[in-house]
């Protein structure tokens, strides 16, 4: 099996975020591997490990695919140190201001030429929070889309995958033939910490930085020029007014009810 895992470098979710010129100001905050994507890397590793493994002597391979500024190599490197085999990072000045449509276009272009059986994604980037990129990638490639997986069951001989997911309709089982795009929720596994050996090995693993032209796209397809939606203005919201805080001395439940009545909530 050839598996691709899409990972994104995001601003640390603890950092305070601000806007600069209608987009997130990324320069001012620390960047990390989107934590939800670690589950996707882990799941890819578990899938191949259940069927003979990857790396030297293994029958399978895992490639990391990322789009972002050059420093996105850090996030990709972390995924390599967990055990993935290689990485492609599409980085180009023209990508600044890309929306989900453009992001999925770039990722799909890289994936389309890679001969992959499966693509794994996280369910959400902690900065964009749209949860649409995996479904968009599948739609662009014309592949099956299996999202929000809480468990995967891959059968390489039959070239099929079945996922289980827990949504508002209930517990669903969904199946598809390769090639397929799968997004995973954080319940699915516990991502491993990179070992020292893994970190050292990752330094020697192939990492390709590619520009837009090399994936067959041009500047007008992506970035602010190719974005089909535009921010017109953005402003800081007034801070939540400081609330009332009471210490329970036996009557706080009643005070709470009074508050709800004042607010016309009951």
């Amino acid at each position, binding site marked *: 099996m050839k598996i691709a895992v899409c990972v994104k470098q995001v601003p640390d979710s603890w950092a305070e975020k601000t*806007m600069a010129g209608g987009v997130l100001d990324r320069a001012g905050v620390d960047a990390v591997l989107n934590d939800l994507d670690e589950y996707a890397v882990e799941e890819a590793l578990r899938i191949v490990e259940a069927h003979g493994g990857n790396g030297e002597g293994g029958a399978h391979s895992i490639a990391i695919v990322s789009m972002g500024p050059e420093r996105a190599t850090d996030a990709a490197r972390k995924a390599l140190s967990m055990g993935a085999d290689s990485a492609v990072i599409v980085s180009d000045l023209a990508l600044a201001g890309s929306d989900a449509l453009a992001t999925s276009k770039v990722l799909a272009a890289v994936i389309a030429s890679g001969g992959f059986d499966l693509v794994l994604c996280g*369910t959400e980037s902690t900065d964009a929070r749209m949860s649409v*990129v995996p479904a968009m990638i599948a739609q662009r490639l*014309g592949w099956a889309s299996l999202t929000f997986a809480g468990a995967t069951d891959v059968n390489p001989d039959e070239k099929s995958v079945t996922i289980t997911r827990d949504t508002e309709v209930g517990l669903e089982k969904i199946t598809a*033939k390769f090639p397929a795009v799968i997004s995973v929720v954080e319940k699915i596994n516990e991502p491993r910490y990179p070992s020292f050996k893994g970190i050292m090995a990752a330094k020697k693993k192939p990492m390709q930085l590619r520009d837009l032209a090399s994936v067959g796209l041009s500047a007008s397809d992506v970035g602010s020029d190719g974005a089909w939606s535009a921010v017109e203005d953005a402003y*800081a919201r007034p801070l939540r007014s400081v609330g*009332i805080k009471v210490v329970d001395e036996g009557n*706080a439940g009643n005070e709470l009810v009074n508050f709800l009545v004042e607010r016309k*909530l*009951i």
Partner: protein
Amino acid sequence: MSEVFVLVQFADGKVSSTTLELVTYGARAGSVTALVLATPGTGAALASQLTTGPITKVVIVESADFSTFGVSATADVLGQMVLSQNPSALLISSSAFGKEVAGCVAVITDSGIITDAVDLASDLQATQIVFGGSTTVHSRVSHGCSIITLRPNSVTPELSPSTPSVEISQIVVNESAKLAQTLSIEPAVKGGRPDLTAANAIVSGGRGTGGDFSPVEEFADVLGAAVGASRAATDAGWYPHSLQVGQTGKTVSPQLYVACGISGAIQHRAGMQTSKTIVVINKDPEAPIFDIADFGVVGDLFAVLPQASQGVRARKSS
């Protein structure tokens, strides 16, 4: 007047209240066409419920593929409709399902998409609240159909009686949308409480419940609220994952959110901090959840909640 498509949402054979919110937004921007995508034999009954609007037209598409091929089948049909009818906008509720459908329709029709909007103006400018509630953003789709998903509970439906024309469309789902097949669904046990994402009020419990959700449920029931949970509570198996609120659970923004025994980790706040009024009950005065509370009680939820439930009951009966 331009036409606005609204994807009708339904649960258990009923049109959802969220649909009426979408219709309210849609009517600001054009004449509303409500799209009922249903399994065979169920479309007419659903369409007949659409009598409050303003809804100008109802279009029914029936296919067994909607339940078998979920998002892809739905997006495929919506894509075909948008391409042939050129509506100015397509409005969908901001659920996980709704956002994915919207994303796929955006790809199919090469249109712009805005997700998680909390308001929509007559000129289709959308309002979003981002970065954990700290920033308001106005944006607009600049190409194709404006595909916009709207958060439930963001507008009070403005209703007027309507007698829409009803049309049955013969569109069929393309084979290319039949790749991922649903094998089985074990329905979620609902227990009679309102749906989490659409609820007006939510009472949530966390690790502080120690697994005993009875005071949380009791308070929810006197308020007619939904019950939610933090990840610590769903991880421990105390409550189903489908009721988890937060970054990897549901994003909610009810009129009232009551957090009980929840510390307020950033991942939890990401799912609830745009709630209109936030009430907190927590033993630890330093818990970060107090930072966003409109009314915070430093106390034991096992003492405060029963008293509050009793208080609400007393008020209702008087």
